[in-house]
């Protein structure tokens, strides 16, 4: 089955579940959560670098989505609409300075846990930590542009729709973020 057909069927299934959720059916909403939970977790982890915070933000995203589902008119895909809520939840997530300071440590520990489980090699582990640390050093808006365009593969127009800004702004944020990431990773990773 082609990706387009799969996507279309998923969109149809989402539409039915959304309609049922709008009438207050929690089971239908639970099914929507099941369909999109991995995507939302992935986004919240990339934005926070912490599994615990990613879980909290994913919970908050779905709770907000349920509150606002009455206003969903189906003009955009449900996943795009949900992405937008998840991204806004992440951007509104206020980090205290202390929390920000510990962020890198948490992230390193979580990646190291995988290393200890034998899932990745030592060199890979170090490189992953550097990349994740560099990503977390970016300003939140630039990080969100990188997460949407590079990790989730959205084009700039789709990312702009989710971030509520112009395509040009997204392009600029991606450009600025790339420049910083290259500089940091070359400095720390010895990449030519």
């Amino acid at each position, binding site marked *: 089955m082609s990706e387009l057909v799969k996507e279309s069927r998923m969109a149809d299934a989402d539409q039915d579940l959304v309609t049922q*959720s*709008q009438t*207050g059916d*929690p089971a239908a*909403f*639970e*099914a929507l*959560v*099941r369909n999109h*939970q*991995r995507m939302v*977790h*992935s986004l919240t*982890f*990339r934005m926070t670098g912490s*599994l615990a915070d990613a879980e909290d933000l*994913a*919970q908050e995203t*779905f*709770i907000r989505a*349920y*509150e*606002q*589902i*009455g*206003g969903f008119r189906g003009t955009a895909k449900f996943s795009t609409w949900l992405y937008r809520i998840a991204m806004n939840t992440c951007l509104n997530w206020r980090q205290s300075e202390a929390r920000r300071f510990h962020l890198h440590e948490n992230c390193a520990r*979580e*990646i190291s*846990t*995988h290393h200890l489980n034998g899932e*990745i090699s030592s060199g*890979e582990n170090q*490189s*992953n930590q550097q*990349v*994740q640390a560099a*990503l977390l050093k970016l300003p939140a808006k630039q990080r969100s542009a*990188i997460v949407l365009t*590079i*990790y989730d593969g959205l084009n700039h127009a789709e990312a702009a729709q989710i971030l509520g800004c112009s395509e040009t702004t997204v392009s600029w944020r991606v450009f600025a973020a*790339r420049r910083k*990431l*290259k500089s940091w*990773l*070359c400095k720390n990773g010895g*990449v*030519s």
Partner: protein
Amino acid sequence: MNDFDLDSKLKSVPVPERTDEYWESFPSQVRINLRRAAVRPVAENFWLPRLAWAGGGFALAIALVFFCIQFNVLQTASASIDRHEKHFHAQLVQLDTGLHTLMLNTHGMNYLLTDAN
């Protein structure tokens, strides 16, 4: 490092995988939290923002009309004083010690005399 290298490097960092039990329990956890918070889907009120804008616009229009009326009254009074200034001065010079006040009413510009005693 070019853009392609950077993208490859970024994509090589995996999101830590969670257990199957976690993915199984997460949706029901959301449902429990929704029940705990007694959250209900709220139909977005389509007319509320429009009504607020219309109300604001109406209030602004009223304020503008009121301002124009006030401005017009002041302009009229000022023009009337200017027009009759000579006449009033001539009249006032003829008065002895009486206190006098100029006043504007619906009949036009008048002077009011009061006895000093």
